[in-house]
């Protein structure tokens, strides 16, 4: 298995590396092509047009690279994805953009299971908003996909998150509510527990109730109460799809319990009542993904030569109405670095 992968890698790089070493002269080709024929990019989205897609599009506008975007939204319906694959192939586009883990895995396959009939293989592709590119087997290694795709990661490394959390206030007992059916959250809990040993805090976890194989929304508020009674002084909100959907319930409950909360993704802070978060903004991630697309389309780089990395700039977002409601103020040093969400209104508890 490993031998086969190595062999595959070797063969692929033998084919791709010369191409990378002798890049087509960009000045000769792109200006001649740009006015006449824009690059055609097929954008497969999961839940509509949002910031990452906007960032992706704006990058080309700002860089003056002519593109024709063919935008398709699955509307969180997995059944539509095979149609997208067929359409992209039939249109013969220059590049495919995939949004989210599900779209990416279904359209591009995993590195150990690629079927040219079901997946896109000949057209280069870039992916964004995949929380665990390695864990989901999209790529074997963040240094290189080893195949015809490139992409970006968007989750802040856990130790950076913990340092940021501690810089607001040193925490003694960190609480976490999560969906036990999502593997991401289990991994996050393990990492947090491990880091707690070094950073001097204790982790208390509260998985939401599961009935008939489905997480129960109504149990969220009770879980938060339990944590509060357990002496938790800070709530950690993992990048969990179930909790993202029900973020108002979760953050509302935390506010009711006067518990400050830290979110690993931007939505709970930007469009709900989490107190603060350290995230890579979707918009920035979209821009970085467009930069990878530019490397492939304009500069003729092989996708396998592009590493899968997050944006440089970490965004610290503080939700001021929540801060005021909790009267739990951020330190001046952190505040001077942070983006502040403040609509001027006071939140109700």
């Amino acid at each position, binding site marked *: 298995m490993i031998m086969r992968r190595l062999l595959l890698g070797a063969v692929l790089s033998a084919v791709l590396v010369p191409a990378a070493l002798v890049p087509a002269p960009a000045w000769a080709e792109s200006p001649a092509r740009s006015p006449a024929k824009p690059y055609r990019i097929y954008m497969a989205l999961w839940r509509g047009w949002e910031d990452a897609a906007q960032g992706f599009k704006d990058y080309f506008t700002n860089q003056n690279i002519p593109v024709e975007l063919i935008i398709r939204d699955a509307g969180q319906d997995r059944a539509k994805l095979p149609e997208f694959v067929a359409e992209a192939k039939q249109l013969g586009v220059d590049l495919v953009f995939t949004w989210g883990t599900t779209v990416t895995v279904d359209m591009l396959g995993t590195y150990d299971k690629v079927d040219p009939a079901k997946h896109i293989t000949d057209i280069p592709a870039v992916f964004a908003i995949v929380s665990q590119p390695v864990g989901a087997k999209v790529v074997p290694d963040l240094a290189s996909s080893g195949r015809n795709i490139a992409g970006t990661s968007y989750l802040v490394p856990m130790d950076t998150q913990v340092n940021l959390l501690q810089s607001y206030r040193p925490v003694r007992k960190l609480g976490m509510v999560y969906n036990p059916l999502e593997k991401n959250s289990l991994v996050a809990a393990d990492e947090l527990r491990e880091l707690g040993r070094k950073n001097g805090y204790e982790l208390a976890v509260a998985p939401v109730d599961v009935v008939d194989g489905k997480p129960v929304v109504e149990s969220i508020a009770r879980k938060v109460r339990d944590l509060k009674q357990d002496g938790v002084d800070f709530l950690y909100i993992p990048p969990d799809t179930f909790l993202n959907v029900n973020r108002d319930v979760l953050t509302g409950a935390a506010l009711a319990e006067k518990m400050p909360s830290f979110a690993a993704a931007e939505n709970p802070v930007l469009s709900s009542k989490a107190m603060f978060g350290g995230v890579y903004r979707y918009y920035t991630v979209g821009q970085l993904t467009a930069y990878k697309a530019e490397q492939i389309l304009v500069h003729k780089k092989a996708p396998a030569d592009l590493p899968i990395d997050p944006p440089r700039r970490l965004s610290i977002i503080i939700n001021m109405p929540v801060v*005021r409601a909790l009267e739990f103020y951020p*330190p001046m040093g952190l505040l001077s670095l942070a983006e502040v969400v403040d609509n001027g209104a006071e939140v109700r508890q």
Partner: protein
Amino acid sequence: MKSNALTGLREGAMRLDSSRSLLIRLLMLAVLVLVPPMVIGSYRALDNFKRGLGPEMDLKAAAIARDLVAQLERAVGFGIPVDKLVGVDEFFAQVLSANPEIRYLGITDAKGDILFLRGALSEQLNDAYRGRSGRALDDSGLKANIADFVDLALPVHVRDVPVAQVHVGFDQDYVAAQLFGIFYDIAVVLVVSLIIAFEVLLFVVVFNVSGPMKLVAEVVAHARRGDFTRVPGITSADEVGHFVRIFNSAMRQVDGAYRGLMAYIDEVRSGHFDREVAGQVSEIADRVRFLFRFHPSGAPLVLREKLSSDVRLPLFLFIFAEELSRAFMPLYAQALPSPAGWLLTPELLIALPIAVFMAGIAVGSLWAGAVTERLGSRKVFQFGLAPAVLGCVMSGLAHGVIELSLWRGIAGLGYALVTVACQSYISKTTVDSNRATGLGSYVGAVLTAAICGTVAGGVLAERIGFGPTFFVSTALILVSGWLLSHLLAVVDHGAPVAAPVPSGRPLLRIFANWRFTVLVLFAAIPAKMALTGYFFFLVPLTLWNSDHSLAELARIMVLYPLVMLAVSSQSTRLADQMGWRIGQVALGGLIGGAGILSMLAFDGTLPLVIGIVCLGVSHGMSASPQLAAIPDICWIECNRHGRTQVLALLRTLERVGSVIGPLLAAAFLLHWGVKGAVIGLGAVVLAMAAIFAMVAGAYGSGPHLETEEDVP
């Protein structure tokens, strides 16, 4: 006779040269020429600086205050009450550490009560702030003098309502302190350039004028007594050379007249038959021979006297070059990468270059003495120049501490060979009567070079870095080498005197002399330990750790040779008048140890300054009495082996202390930190000095030359 020579040595050490009055006039001329333009120039520069610095400080304070106001207005605008701000202290600390001229930062509420303050005490500012409460500030703020501070207050507004004030304070005398530092630097540069100018003048005058004149005077003095065997061999093309040539032709004329006369007398004697006439002529010839002496070879001997002061300038340059790295050697070692762990702790590694350098000197001088006797000073000097240059240039290129130590050891070897060659040259070119002057010139060159080198090294290293400073040293060593080999080549070194090389074994019996052993163990060795362990190693480290610049560091360290120079001249006189040599050695040791221990009583830089001054007093007080006491307490050994041998042994033994000093300090540093190491070393030095002081009481008792009868 012996004590006369010693007194001569001491008096001579004070006397630069017989051409002193000329030198003093020349020096005054140099001062007149150098000082006024420098003073006027620097005064103008300082005036501009002063006028520029004040407004500059105001602008900087205002810029910082505006930045803080902006940040505060943002935070307060988000609804954070001013008195509930979090992390203000850390926030201020960052700003303060980035702007060292700002003394404090503070926030007061609308009533003038202090909410946050860092860098000053609230008591210092409270009254002034409360006193002006209620006064509305406009956006340009309010500048006020509060105690020693200049306080700039700017208002913080939220929706046009003033809610707080930001205060930025700086020292009123910050500008004055800056100016003082610059004045001090200029003064130091001025003094160093005067000393160097003086050294060059001294060399020029002695080499070209007073030296040749002295030689002529010597020949004239001989001629007055009827001795026409020698003429001065001066060949310079200037007025002095011209004069000497005319003088010599007169001498040769006299010589020719004498030889003509003698030839005539011989002719008369052999050709005359009258015995009486022959007898009378012989008598006249005998009388002439009795009254006047001419060289038997048929022509007067050309006299090229070597002058001990010739080596002064090259020696000065050589020591100057070696001293350049004095103030920063441990810092350089600290900055180099070092192999971690194992037996060598980081502390030990920093001390290693100094210790190995000292060991190099110890080994080198042990060996150099014997080699010089056989080969002559010129060869030894040339031989020593190679390791000195190699060690110095490679020290500047070293990649690691171990490598640096190796090169320092080689440089130490060269140092020993060159200095021993110079010393032996001086003692060869002098006779008993003027040896004191010669040695005085040696000591003078070494001390002034130490003063100038330490200071100049600090300034240089700050401007061009550690490595390049070593290259400057190398260049100076090469210049000194060129001068020295040129000078030593002028005079042939004469027949190497086959001095009796004493076998070591009988000399070792000197340890049976308890006075000598105690002097070595409890006075000489701790003095060197304090010098290398404290002054060379711990002082630069401590000063550096407390944020002093290299130039400041050198400025503080130069106190040691300065104080030592001042004290030693006085104390030598005192010792002669009081005859209290051992007492001075004991007292000196105690002062040095106590000075180092002032670390116990004070904080900051003060104890180091006290320690350095005390060390200067201590060594100035005890160094020459310690040597002068040797002939008294080792009368027999001096008689048997020669005073030079005994002194050389003392010199070698005390270098054990030089090697131990930094290593011991490093061991203390590892366990107790910098302050603890200073105190530990001070305690060791003081304890040893105390033992010596107690035993010293017994030096005077008992038969003073107890074993005189045993002299074979």
